[in-house]
């Protein structure tokens, strides 16, 4: 069972959380303007890296807040968790590890 640092509540056991898949995929502001291909990309295409992955978590049985996390999918180590709307530490520095997701690339 993972131990996850909720940005609001601190370390909590995994059972209190729900994982929401890849992070930083913003809903397009005007979906109607997207082509079918672009919409399909937004809806269905996700990265599945071996390594650091940015993902959404919801502290559903805690404070109820959604937040983002960067987790190494090999070791399950959380590099950081951060509130929605915040920038991860890795992007504040010049780090160039494999964290980049499609969404981050688009952003």
């Amino acid at each position, binding site marked *: *069972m993972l131990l996850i640092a909720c940005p609001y509540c601190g370390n909590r*056991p995994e059972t209190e959380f729900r994982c929401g898949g890849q992070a930083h995929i913003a809903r397009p502001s005007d979906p109607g303007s997207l082509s079918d291909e672009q*919409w399909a990309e937004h809806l269905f295409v996700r990265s599945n890296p071996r390594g650091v992955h940015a993902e959404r978590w919801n502290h559903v049985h805690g404070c109820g807040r*959604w937040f983002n996390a960067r987790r190494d999918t090999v070791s399950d180590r959380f590099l950081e968790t951060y509130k929605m709307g915040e920038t991860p530490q890795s992007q504040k520095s010049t780090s160039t590890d494999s964290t980049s997701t499609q969404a981050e690339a688009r952003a």
Partner: protein
Amino acid sequence: MAQPFRLSRGGRIDRARPVRFTFNGRTIEGFHGDSVASALLANGIHLVGRSFKYHRPRGILSHGPDEPSALLSVDRGPGRIDPNNRASVVEARDGLKTLSQNHWPSLEHDIGAVNDLLSPVFVAGFYYKTFMWPRKFWDKVYEPFIRAAAGLGKAPAVPDPDRYANRHAHCDVLVVGAGPAGLAAALAAARTGKRVILADEGPEPGGALLHDVTAEIDGRPASEWLSATLAELDSRENVILLSRTTAFGYYNHNHVALAERVTDHLPSPGTAPRERLWQVRAGEVVLAGGSHERPLVFADNDRPGILLAESVRVFVNRYGVAPGRRIVFATSGASAYAAALDAKAAGLAVTLVDLRSDSECGPELARLKAAGVEVLTGHTVIGSKGTKRVTGLIVAPVDRAGRCGAHRVLDCDCVGMSGGWTPAVHLFSQSRGKLAYDERLDAFLPGTSAQAERSAGASKGTYDLAAILAEGFAAGAAAAGSDERRSFTATPTLTGFRPVRAMPTDADPTKVRAFVDFQNDVTAKDIKLAVREGFHSIEHVKRYTTTGMATDQGKTSNMNALGIVAGQLDKTLPGVGTTTFRPPYTPVTFGALVGPARHALFDPIRTTPIHDWAEEHGATFENVALWRRAWYFPKAGEDLHKAVARECEAVRRGVGIFDASTLGKIEVVGPDAAEFMNRIYINPWLKLEVGRCRYGLMLKEDGYILDDGVVARIAPDCFHVTTTTGGAPRVLAHMEDYLQTEWPDLKVFLTSTTEQWAVIALQGPKAREVIAPLVDGIDLSPEAFPHMAMRSGTICGVPTRLFRVSFTGELGFEINVPSDHARAVWEAIWEAGQPHGITPYGTETMHVLRAEKGYIIIGQETDGTVTPDDVGLAGMIAKAKKDFVGKRSLARPDVVASGRKQLVGLVTDDPKLVLDEGAQIVADPGQPIPMRMLGHVTSSYWSPNCGRSIAMALVADGRALQGGPLHVTTPEGFARVTVVDPVFFDPKGERIHA
């Protein structure tokens, strides 16, 4: 004579407290502190089981958790029978019944032993090679045969009467293993004041110190150091010291699972739990689980009476038991010399055979010779003699090239063998740490850590007592954040061994059976055969030969098996690698894992405030998500069909009362509430007046229907949302997700009120008359309170949100009242309804009535791939809205393509035939197989109000097929049906506005 092999003195057993248990019906006497194994040996019993495959006589190999052979069924009374207990870890106590396994008719005379004579047939991969053809034999012949032959022991047949507990615990430092390393670690960590848990699987902490009677620590006997250390740990509030507690699984982020055996050793457990599962989250973990001794691989090395050398020492020193009177130790290393010295000191006849030459030996050789023991160095073991008990060991001088000299038989009644040591790296490996091979120690050791843990002592390949203590202390201190170090003085430990995979022999290696894995009856030649047949990956060899599987998970066998594979492949050990160490370390009962989650506590059973009334009125219940809902209310002599028919007619003719409390409810509040609703639902909300309701449909972003429900506008900034029963958590999560992550600018707050409001649905032409006298503050007239309106007022003095809505097509109300008042209000309505023939109805009638009206049910007409248009609800989509969740997907090519399945009604040619829900639909039943399936039946009922069966279905391009025939599968063949509009009753919808 009782306990003829009990030594006259020594051991940690309490000779003043005799215990009696039975083995295969025979009374065995032992002492408090005995294991079942030590008590059996004290009574001269070595033959305790038959092996898995060949049914060979097997004895006790080990004194500890790695025991592969001595597996017993233990009977602690009715319902308390467990198979496959290791005799070496079950504590002897009064009243226990133990039984040997895997034999018929008896342990002494076992028909299955014929397998031993047929052993040339039962080679590696026997099952894979034999039970292949013909195919028709798979189910009827092979599987029953394999099932009958497979497995050890019998599963218990009655429910387990014991209690099992669960406990989450947190500590700064978890120490696994209370041998010298673990004790020193716990001591160092405890002294920092940090929270420490020390868990040891034995009944008594101490590990090897419990049987090392000659070692001294810091100038005093090791046993004294042990007592003093335990006393200190016991006295500390910050330490939890757990005996009989196995750390069996090491999971993510230092989550370690421990199984504590609380009462099995007690004659009467009382109300205490039998076992307790500890789920420990530790800041740091110190692994001090010790090491496992390797058997020697030689012909017939599995005879009862052949033990591991250190186990002989344990039985002599800790239990005061002589496993034999004439003991031959066979070894390739130094530690067996310590066992031989102690056996000799206990007055037993001892000979030692060492594969190593004099020059390879250390000080142990001179010490043993000085004790007057015959030592044969440079000797191999060729085989053993005896059947149900070893009677002799065949040895021969051997040179480094493996050439054997003349055989010599050493008469004996016990053999203690040692092929070296394997550190117990299981938990480290489970923690995802990387193992590193150490050639000097011929062992895989903890290498790179993946979690906050460290190993100490024998589990790290450190075998000298003083070094173990210092290493343990340092590990404990470091785990507690201290850099304190200290050294210990201790008697030097006899260490070092020459790795040997299979003992050199002059026999034809294809003829001898030298067991590598005792539990799975895997021999050296089986492993070699597997490699010859192309299984080069150690994981494949494991599965093909089964070596390293089952309850002992290869604790004694893995390194020998790996070594043999490496030798065959001419690879190094690290080149071959190890198999995966999976939890559990030792077997864990299902009870411990299940804990209290049984019977009423298996899952929460959610009931409504009306539940007891329904029960009192004879309702039959069904499970809906975690809810238990009234299904139907049978009167005397009625079955489901009759009761539902009566309930259905009662609602349409008079009035029915239904408990709809399980409906999900969400209070959506805030200045942007209407805008939020607009984005979440396909419907328009901005102009919905306060006091009005709307049936809402929401989609996932992929355009498929997620949920539905009636929504009332309570105030300009407040909506009372209802969801399906099962969908309530899903919908709230869906809304919260969008609110928090996509539209954080919207000022809206969501609160679940599912359980704040109980909902009493009153449906039928008489509904208004029934509640009229009970309601205050609401004008119930049709003009003032039309269909799809909501009013606040009181009913029976209780505040209510009164909805005029209907899921039946009749005049109806859904009366929301605070839950704790619901039963009183329900009963008041029940009383008021008596003159009108009020009838309680359940979910089944609710389903039929709504199907008569063609109303969909989420999860029945929809399955996560259904769009609003598919179910004929495209008209609800607010055309003016630029966007809502799922809108863009409704223009996806596959959503707008023709050929999608559409909701239709089906009527059978035979009005009495009720189709099966899920039945497939085809256009032409005469077409060749595989047929083209057009869709399936989603709902199907007998409709009392229509006087015939009705069905709803999703059919490809179904709306265009209206009036036409289709064919539906039934158990008897195809049934012809006609496609109709899915509204079977009151198609104009007049009754609802009454």
